[in-house]
């Protein structure tokens, strides 16, 4: 972490502050104002994209806490999202429950699943843990499929938009503002969580478990804590996902979804909340960007059927490129650029780096 020139931390309060300088404040306020104005100038398509990014960001941040900070590899992320979405769908279909019931219920189911599938993490590490979470993914999607076929929703469950009395959340602009608010909460919560006691405990566990234990950190407690926090956030994302799409079906929560979320945190850069934001934007927009490039190059229409395969292949290729050439992810590129310009026009390397 480099500091801007002339910026010294002289008190504990300034050491704790998230925003360092006045320029930062100006940029931050401009950025937030821009985010709030965005839905009113953007087209419906761009608005939908932004909402997708916001939805994915909740789940990606949750995975970042679990994998990027606590070091517990999970291949069951789509399973947690599916759990939240299906809790919402089942409660809505069977009991006609409103959103202020389904949202906490999804969180609760997530917490329970987090405990159950966090338990193996007390015994297992690395690959073995990843495979036990993968098993969870298949079990959750089996239960979801079983519910769909048994109750006769063969193609999926349709959910009405959430409503408070006669007031319905249907308008994409409204969704945008709500999701933006939720995302800001999630990001602020995560940033503060990872620099608090529990976040430091997670990082210690990630770096070396034995040392963490020797330092007096309750390793089993903090591992379960990471799983529970992450799975609650993910299930809530699943609930919002179900309402936003208005449609829940097992096919949406395939293994590929898990891989997408892992790609978000890898491409963004492990161990950084800012990286999660970058990675989420990158991964969500990538297929649309490829589509747009295809349109720009005037690809003949008979080839557009191959577009999906091209998106698939290039997604794999980009993931490989990042893993091999830039393991630090987008955030390390960002830091390099930032450090270059922080003392601009001078070329000295900033201190503390």
């Amino acid at each position, binding site marked *: 972490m480099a500091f801007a020139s002339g910026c010294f931390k002289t008190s504990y309060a300034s050491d704790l502050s998230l925003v360092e300088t006045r320029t930062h404040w100006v940029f931050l306020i401009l950025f937030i104002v821009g985010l709030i104005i965005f839905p009113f100038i953007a087209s419906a398509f761009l608005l939908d994209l932004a909402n997708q990014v916001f939805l994915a960001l909740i789940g990606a941040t949750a995975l970042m806490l679990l994998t990027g900070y606590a070091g517990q*590899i999970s291949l069951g992320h789509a399973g947690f999202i599916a759990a939240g979405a299906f809790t919402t769908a089942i409660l809505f279909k069977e009991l006609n429950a409103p959103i202020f019931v389904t949202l906490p219920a999804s969180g609760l189911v997530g917490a329970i699943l987090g405990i159950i599938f966090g338990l*193996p993490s007390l*015994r*297992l*590490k*690395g*690959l*073995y843990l*990843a*495979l*036990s979470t*993968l*098993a*969870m993914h*298949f*079990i959750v*999607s*089996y239960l979801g*499929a*079983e519910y769909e*076929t048994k109750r006769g929703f063969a193609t999926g469950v349709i959910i009405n938009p959430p409503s408070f009395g006669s007031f319905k959340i249907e308008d994409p602009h409204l969704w945008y503002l709500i999701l933006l608010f939720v995302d800001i909460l999630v990001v602020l919560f995560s940033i503060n969580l990872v620099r608090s006691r529990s976040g430091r405990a997670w990082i210690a566990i990630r770096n070396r478990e034995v040392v963490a234990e020797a330092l007096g950190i309750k390793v089993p407690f903090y591992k379960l804590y990471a799983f529970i926090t992450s799975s609650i956030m993910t299930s809530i994302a699943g609930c919002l996902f179900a309402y936003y799409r208005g449609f829940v079906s097992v096919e949406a929560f395939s*293994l*590929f979804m898990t*891989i997408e979320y*892992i*790609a978000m945190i*890898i491409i963004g850069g492990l161990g950084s909340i800012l990286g999660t934001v970058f990675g989420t934007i990158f991964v969500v927009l990538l297929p649309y960007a490829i589509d747009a490039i295809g349109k720009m190059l005037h690809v003949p229409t008979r080839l557009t059927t*191959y577009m*999906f*395969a*091209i*998106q*698939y*292949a*290039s*997604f*794999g*290729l980009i*993931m*490989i490129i990042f*893993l*091999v050439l830039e*393991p630090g992810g987008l955030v390390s590129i960002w830091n390099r650029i930032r450090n270059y310009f922080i003392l601009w026009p001078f070329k000295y390397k900033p201190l503390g780096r």
Partner: protein
Amino acid sequence: MQIILNTIVLASLYCLICCGYVLIYRASRVLNLAHGELMALGGYLLFTVTMGLYASPIPSFLLACIFSLTLGFIIYFFLMRFMAGESVFAAVLVTVALGILLRGLMTLIWTSQLWHPLQHLGMENSSHRLMEEAVISTFGIIKILGATFLYLVLFFCLKFTRWGLRMRAVGENPLLASRRGIKLHKYYAFSWGIAALSGGFAGMIQACDSGLEPGMFVIGLKAFPVVLVGGLDSLVGVIPGAFIVALAEILAINYISPQASESAPFIVLLVMLLIRPWGLLGTKEELERV
């Protein structure tokens, strides 16, 4: 009777697939999550060979096997070599990404249509009646024979040849092995090549048995509960593992529902991870190494 026979056929398919997982894992501690795709690719290679080069059973199988082997080497030298010495997690993720890339390329080249390479080979997948009332297809028999043959060869090679000794040494302690003059990259590449070969062969047989489509990689996914049940680092363990998982799957098809059979291997996996995480014949120390 039919259930037992089906279990044996499925178990031998799993054996064929899983020895690739174990070989790569033993050599380089990387779990190759792209193995299902390598398997599907084997089937497609056979299909291409029969379409474009040579359409007679044994030569086209051999050619496709050689292509699979080369593919394994190519993957190692152009991709996985760079991941040597990186963290295991990163290497595993590279294989995940490789799987996605391969899947995309496969649909791009061969489309997602269902193909039947068998028709071009001029062979027929007839069913045979065994004893009282059990039925087995020709390729079911080939699966069993192929798995038995492969395991005998691998067992012999790893146990009694100089090459196998070096392979085991590389897996045991790469640093020491390279100090003794064993070329690490060569043996890692071998493990990838043989894994691609055996996986591809499984894919070829499976393609002949039930047609060829990109969704085939799912079988590879269902196969790694087998490896974990048997023990990730144990080649012999694959055999009991394959039987347990195959039995669970076949029983689930027969007595619960076809849907349940998709997740049956993973329930077995979860139970195994809770009771004996290092697998039936694996070594306990392995848990600490990953």
